[in-house]
């Protein structure tokens, strides 16, 4: 049995991220909403976020929370106009291999197992 690391990751044959899109102004959010922070409206639609993106910012973290292997690459990926926070994976975590503007695609992988054997699946972006 698999569960997604966060509820905006949809698993299955074609894993993808979903956002709540404000039906009034189009602003997109990944968290549970009380209202739109851009225009104040309260109606949202679930929209799929493109799985291909471009890396528009990154850092290579050497000191992290306990249990997080370092170094790892944290970044912001522009997925067709929707910015997504994610780790950049399946690439050497150094400035020779990770570059601003590099083309990426969504990848999913196990991130842990609980006491009942349920597997949590997380996501990142890998070079395409």
């Amino acid at each position, binding site marked *: 049995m698999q*569960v*997604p*690391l*966060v*509820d*905006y990751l949809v698993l299955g044959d074609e894993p993808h991220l979903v956002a709540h899109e404000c039906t009034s102004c189009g*602003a*997109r*959010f*990944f*968290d*549970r909403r009380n209202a739109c*922070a*851009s225009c104040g409206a309260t109606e949202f639609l679930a929209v799929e976020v493109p799985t291909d993106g471009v*890396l*528009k*910012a*990154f*850092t*290579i*973290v*050497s*000191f*992290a*929370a306990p*249990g*997080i292997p370092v*170094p*790892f690459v*944290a*970044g*912001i990926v522009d997925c067709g*106009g*929707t*910015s*997504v*926070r*994610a*780790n950049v994976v399946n690439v050497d975590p150094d*400035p020779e291999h990770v570059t*601003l*503007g590099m083309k990426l695609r969504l990848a999913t992988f196990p*991130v*842990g197992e*609980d*006491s*009942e054997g*349920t597997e*949590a699946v*997380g*996501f990142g972006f890998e070079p395409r």
Partner: protein
Amino acid sequence: MSDDVWILGIKMTKFGKHPERDTVDLAAEAALGALSDAQVTMRDMGVLAAGNLMAAAAGIGQQLQKQIGQTGIPVFNVANACATGATALRTAVMAIKAGEADYGLAVGVEKLAGAGLLAGGSRREGDETFTPHGRHGAVLPVDGRIGTETMPGVFAQVGMQYLYEHQYSGTPFELFARISEKNHSHSTLNPLAAYTKKMSLEQIMGDVMIAYPNTRPMCSANCDGAAAAVVVSDAKLKTLSKEQQRRAVKVAASVLTSDPWEEACQVLPDVNTLTQNAASQAYEQAGVGPEDLDLVELHDCFATAELVHYDNLMLCEPGGAVDYFESGATWRDGSLPVNVSGGLESKGHPIAATGIANVWEICQHLRGEGGDRQIEGARVGLAHVIGLGSACGVHILEKAAA
């Protein structure tokens, strides 16, 4: 007579490790120092605004009063992350502008020495069986699994994003390290800085990497410190001594903003728009432009942050921050010295104190009391801080007319 507000007295403590002194000791040193510098006492104060981020719920204002003067005045305990000091100053200024007090005291204090890595967000432990928690339905803590919430990492991305947006084709690590080199060099002239050692580019780039491209010296220094300012109305100032009037510094602008919604702001804090807004409002309030500034103390919480604020504060052409830095403009002998105090990287960043400490720095130069650091002929300065969440405080200070 106008509705201007003036800084009558101001003080910052030496930043550094003060294990034998508690938070109130440091706040008291700053407050009593500011009162003494202003030649007034606690009895004159009509309002107190105080901030201490690490113990924001503990009421630092009243704790301070209980050591230096319980006069029953209104106390506003404020918290706006790293913009707490500026928020305290803004609050005192606002009370005077509202006509509710003639004199106000603003204090910011922090004990942060030895604090280590700071991070936003939550670090909750996982449950035994996966259970979705919070507004993202997370079954495990996301920091490090979905990007980073550590401050050096967040602000590294802020700087890198600027380079991406402006098609930078050089070497990011060296660029940002050179900014740090400038600030460490500046701090050698500042006896109140936590670190006063010159560091070469090689030393900075060779130091421990925290979150590329920020090495340890490129990160704001965690330390203990406090700063306080006494502010006074123009009407009251005119009744004071010639010396008090001569040394008073005009608060030409006092602005606080929060971050308006932008597309990516939920995934990476937008420290740009709210700074641009605060700067525009401040320049308009003060009736000056960036070309009128003689020095700037801005929020270099990390070397990667300083770069974007050259642009946000409109010190350079839009998109031109890299060229601006590389022209040498922001060194102390350049056309607009930035962070001659050593900045947060070298002077230090006791969080709630910083927003008043950078105003203190500006005041030293405007009063002609900058010692070895003095920027000659300084008449107008700008102080800027950003606290994540977010808040931006910008103050523009002007020398008293002769």
